[in-house]
């Protein structure tokens, strides 16, 4: 028995090696259910926490990529929405213009602003139409809200327009309801006002001021603004009438020339 035990001891490593390799080859050669079963046990016992963490990391990465993609999409859609809003506003302005009937023997010619000048508020703009487009000096310039100004100088391919905020641009006007006449002027201190309107006449706040057509430049009946304040100073012959312009000179976008049809 002793020699057997000593032999086993010496050859212990050999026996273990043979057993281990036999087992390994059995696993390798049988495959199928045996390997699957072992793999299941090992995965459940050893791999489970790491697989859980790995799945969590994959989900986080996927979510992060989704968030990045959504942020890009959001930025793109925001820009697109802004463009749509701009188009919507333009659509509204054009629809408003469609309802505007130009005075007889005039036609509307759309034009683009290519330059603006003025101090606090624009008083002169450059437009992209000139003599070659049949633009002439003193033609009326409007937008969808009312009178904007008149053509002051005409070059070949562009023109200078004096807006109503330019002191040199005066308009013969009248109060729409009472038909009282006066002259629309503008200066930096007072803003727009209706000058030369006698105190005998009836003028009330909220009345619309329109062109009278008497100056020979602006056709009759175009809206200039709304009367904002009326003062009747003592010992003065004329009212002090402040007018709120119908046109927002700071927000000019499209302009239209009222061209004479010949």
């Amino acid at each position, binding site marked *: 028995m002793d020699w057997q035990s000593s032999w086993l001891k010496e050859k*212990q*490593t050999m026996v*273990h*090696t043979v057993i*281990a*390799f036999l*087992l*390994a*080859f059995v*696993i*390798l*050669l049988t*495959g199928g259910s045996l*390997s*699957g079963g*072992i*793999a299941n046990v*090992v*995965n459940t016992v*050893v*791999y489970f926490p*790491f*697989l859980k*963490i*790995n799945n969590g*990391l994959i989900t986080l990465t996927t979510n992060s990529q989704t968030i990045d993609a959504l942020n890009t999409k959001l930025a793109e859609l925001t820009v697109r929405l802004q463009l749509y809003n701009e188009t919507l506003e333009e659509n509204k302005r054009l629809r408003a213009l469609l309802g505007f009937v130009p005075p007889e023997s005039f036609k509307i010619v759309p034009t683009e602003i290519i330059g603006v000048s003025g101090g606090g508020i624009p008083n002169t703009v450059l437009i992209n139409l000139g003599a070659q487009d049949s633009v002439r000096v003193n033609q009326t310039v409007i937008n969808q809200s009312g009178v904007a100004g008149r053509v002051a100088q005409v070059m070949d391919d562009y023109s200078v327009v004096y807006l109503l905020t330019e002191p040199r641009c005066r308009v013969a006007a009248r109060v729409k309801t009472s038909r009282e006449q006066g002259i629309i002027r503008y200066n930096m201190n007072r803003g727009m006002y209706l000058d030369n309107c006698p105190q005998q006449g009836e003028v009330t706040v909220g009345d619309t001021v329109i062109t009278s057509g008497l100056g020979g430049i602006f056709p009759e009946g175009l809206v200039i603004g709304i009367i904002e304040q009326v003062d009747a100073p003592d010992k003065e012959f004329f009212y002090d009438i402040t007018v709120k312009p119908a046109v927002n000179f700071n927000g000019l976008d499209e302009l239209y020339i009222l061209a004479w049809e010949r």
Partner: protein
Amino acid sequence: MTRFIPYILYLYLIACFRTLLVEPLSIGNIQLYLTPLIVMLVALHKDHITALWFGFAAGIVYDAVDPAHMGVQIVILSAIGIITAQAKDRFNLESLKSLILLLSVGLIAFAIPHTLIYTTSGVSEFGRLFLQVTLPGVVYTAFIGWLFFMIKTGRISYKKFKELF
């Protein structure tokens, strides 16, 4: 029973490496062969039978992710374990160079079948893959082994590192 705890932790380290660390620790296509490195380090410090059965267990853990090839790595890692343990007794492994040489041979023995099994291109592309992926992987892992021995023998330490600056 407590004497098994370190080996169980090594097996969990292998599982952690296979699932979470294999990509972060790879340099491009070059993989770290951590499993055979752990098996050889255990074999260099423990007896033959422990080395053999640890290699066997490491092979099971390694192959569990891919049951279709279950058995291949068990054979290879068991062989690496027992052969490393035998080599420890038969060769003089006192110098660092001989240890690294032994590690490199063991790593190549692991990496070649690993490359053949886990690359879809098969034998035809083996030469290219061996030079571009397997060999750099062996060098990378051997370098990690070298670092381990340098730290273990005290040739690299925090104190020495601090003295450099």
